[in-house]
C-alpha cells in the first residue's frame, strides 16, 4: 500500500512539473491555449532550435490561420530558419468553447498575449518572438503591441498588408479605385467595369458601417482582379484535403460555425469603431511594413500611415511592385528576404 502511495505521489509530482520541450530543427507541436471563453489551437512548426519564433496573426477576421499560413512559402522561407507559430484567434478557424459572449478588442489582444506567454513557458524565456500580422491581423497586432506592456515580449513587428485603421482603409480603397480606374479608362482597359466601380464608389463613400465597408472591400477585390500586371496569389484550399482531414487540425463544421459567428459578432465593425492610428505612437518595437502596390483591399496608404504615426525608432516600408494583398505569397522570395534580414537584425 505504501508503495502505491509513493507511486501516486511521484506521478503527481512529475505531472505538475514544467515540461521541457526539446528545441529542434523540425518541431511540429500542437497544443491549446485557453483565452477567456475560447480555446485556441496553436501549431509550432519549423526550426525551434533557432530560438526565434514568428507568431502569425491571421487575417479575415475568422480565417483558419492555423493551416492557412502554413503555406508552401512559409515552409520554404520561414520554417527552415525559425519556428513558425500558427494559431486561430477567438471565434476563428477551429477555436472552440462553450460560450455565448461578446468580442472586444481585448478579446484579441489578450489572446495574442496568452499565446506569447505560453510559447515562452513552453520553449523558454530566452527565445526571441516576432509578430507577423496580415490584413485584419495588422489591426490585432497593432492593438496588441499598443496595449499594456505587451510589446516588451516582442523583438519586432512584421506588418504585411495590415489594416490597422479600417475607416482610413475604406477611403484609401475609394481613392485607389478612382485614380487607377481613370488611368485604365484612359488606356481603354476594361472601361465599362472601371466606370461602374468609380460610379459606385462616388455614390457610396465610407460611412463607418461594416456593411458599407464590406461592399467597398468587395469593390476593391473586383478592381484587383482587373489588374493584369499584378500577381494574384491567394491562400490555397484543397477540397480533397479538407474532406480527408489532411489539414491539421481540421474540423470543417467548427470552421463554418466560427465563420458565421465572425459575421454575427460583426468583427469588422469592431475594427471600424477602434482605429489604431492614434495608438501607434505607443509602439516602440521595430516595425517592417510590407504592402503590395496592387492591393486594392488594404492599400499602401495604410503602410504610410504606420510610418507616420508609429513610435518606433526603426521602421521601414517596403512596397512590392507585382503584389496585391498577399506579397508573402506572390513575391515570396523578396518578401521573405526582407523578413529574414529584419529578424536577423533584431533577434
Amino acid at each position, binding site marked *: 500500500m505504501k508503495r502505491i502511495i509513493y507511486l501516486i505521489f511521484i506521478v503527481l509530482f512529475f505531472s505538475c512539473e514544467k515540461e521541457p520541450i526539446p528545441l529542434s530543427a523540425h518541431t511540429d507541436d500542437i497544443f*491549446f491555449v485557453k483565452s477567456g471563453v475560447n480555446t485556441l489551437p496553436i501549431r509550432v512548426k519549423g526550426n525551434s532550435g533557432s530560438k526565434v519564433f514568428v507568431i502569425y496573426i491571421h487575417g479575415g477576421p475568422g480565417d483558419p490561420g492555423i493551416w492557412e499560413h502554413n503555406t508552401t512559402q512559409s515552409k520554404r522561407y520561414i520554417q527552415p530558419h525559425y519556428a513558425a507559430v500558427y494559431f486561430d484567434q477567438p471565434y476563428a478557424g477551429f477555436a472552440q468553447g462553450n*460560450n455565448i459572449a461578446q468580442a472586444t478588442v481585448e478579446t484579441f489582444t489578450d489572446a495574442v498575449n496568452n499565446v506569447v506567454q505560453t510559447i515562452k513557458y513552453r520553449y523558454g524565456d530566452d527565445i526571441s518572438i516576432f509578430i507577423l500580422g496580415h490584413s485584419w491581423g495588422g489591426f490585432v497586432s497593432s492593438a496588441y503591441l499598443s496595449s499594456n506592456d505587451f510589446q516588451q515580449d516582442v523583438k519586432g513587428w512584421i506588418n504585411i498588408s495590415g489594416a490597422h485603421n479600417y475607416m482610413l482603409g475604406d477611403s484609401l480603397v475609394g481613392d485607389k479605385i478612382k485614380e487607377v480606374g481613370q488611368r485604365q479608362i484612359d488606356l481603354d482597359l476594361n472601361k465599362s467595369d472601371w466606370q461602374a466601380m468609380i460610379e459606385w464608389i462616388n455614390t457610396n463613400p465610407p460611412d463607418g458601417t461594416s456593411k458599407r465597408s464590406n461592399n467597398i472591400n468587395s469593390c476593391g477585390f473586383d478592381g484587383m482582379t482587373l489588374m493584369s500586371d499584378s500577381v494574384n496569389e491567394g491562400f490555397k484550399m484543397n477540397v480533397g484535403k479538407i474532406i480527408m482531414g489532411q489539414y491539421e487540425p481540421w474540423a470543417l463544421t467548427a470552421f463554418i*460555425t466560427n465563420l458565421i*459567428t465572425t459575421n454575427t459578432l460583426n468583427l469588422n465593425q469592431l475594427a471600424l469603431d477602434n482605429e489604431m492610428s492614434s495608438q501607434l505612437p505607443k509602439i516602440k518595437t521595430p516595425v517592417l511594413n510590407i504592402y503590395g502596390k496592387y492591393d486594392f483591399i488594404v492599400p499602401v496608404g495604410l503602410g504610410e500611415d504606420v510610418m507616420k504615426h508609429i513610435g518606433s525608432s526603426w521602421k521601414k516600408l517596403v512596397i512590392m511592385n507585382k503584389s496585391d494583398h498577399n506579397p508573402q505569397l506572390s513575391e515570396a522570395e523578396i518578401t521573405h528576404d526582407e523578413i529574414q534580414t529584419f529578424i536577423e537584425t533584431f533577434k
Partner: protein
Amino acid sequence: MKKFITILTLGALLNSSLNVSAQDFDKPTISVSHTKGAKYRIEGLNTQDSSKRTTFQTYYWQNYLGIGVLGSIKYPGLELNYSKAHKSFIQGKKGKEKFKIRRWEFFTRYYYHRNFHHNIMLTAGKSWQRKLKKERFFISQADIGLSRTFYDRPTFRNNNGRVERMWLAGDFYFNFNYRFGFGKHFHHKQKTYRLYSYFGLLNFFPYNNLYYSRVYLGLNLNKFIHK
C-alpha cells in the same frame, strides 16, 4: 384428440411466453380509431392481435442492447445503447398498412477527433421505426443529453502572468442529435439481432455563440433481450 390437446398446449405455452415478454410494456388492449374514408390506426397490438393482419415478431416487444461504430469520414467513434420498447401500431388504409414501432433509447457515445478533442455524450431519446419487407426496417432516432469534450493536446492558461497546464481541460455542451437509417433483423441460435446503418447530425450547444454540428455515419448491432 391427442393432436388437438398438443396444439392447445403449445398454443397456451406460446401465448404465455409472449405475454411474459409483453407484460412490461403497454398492456395490449386494442383500440381502433376510424376516420371516414377508411384511414385507421390500431394501437396496443400484441402478437395474437396482429397475426391476422401482418407478420408480427415477438422481438418488437423486447428491449435490446446495442453496440455500434460511428464516425465522421476519418474520425472514429463508439456507441452503446439500451432500448426499451414503448408501443407498436398499425396505421393506414387496408392493403396499404404501415406497421410502426416506437422505442425509448439511451445512448452513450464517444468519438475522437485528432488535434481537436475527445467527446463523450450521454443522451436519451426516442426512435421511430417502420417495418419494411423481409424483416427490413426504416429507423429514425432523436435524442438529447449532455456532452463533455476533452482537448486531446496539452492545454495551457495564463493565470495572471503565470502559465499553467490544465488537466482534463474541455467543455460541457448541451447535446441534441438526430439520425435515420435502414436495417434488417436476423436470427442466430434462437436469438434475434438487428443491424442498421444510419446518417445523422450530432449537435452541441452553445459553441462560440452558435452551435457545433457534426455530420456522422454509423453502423449498429443490437441484440434483443428478455426482461
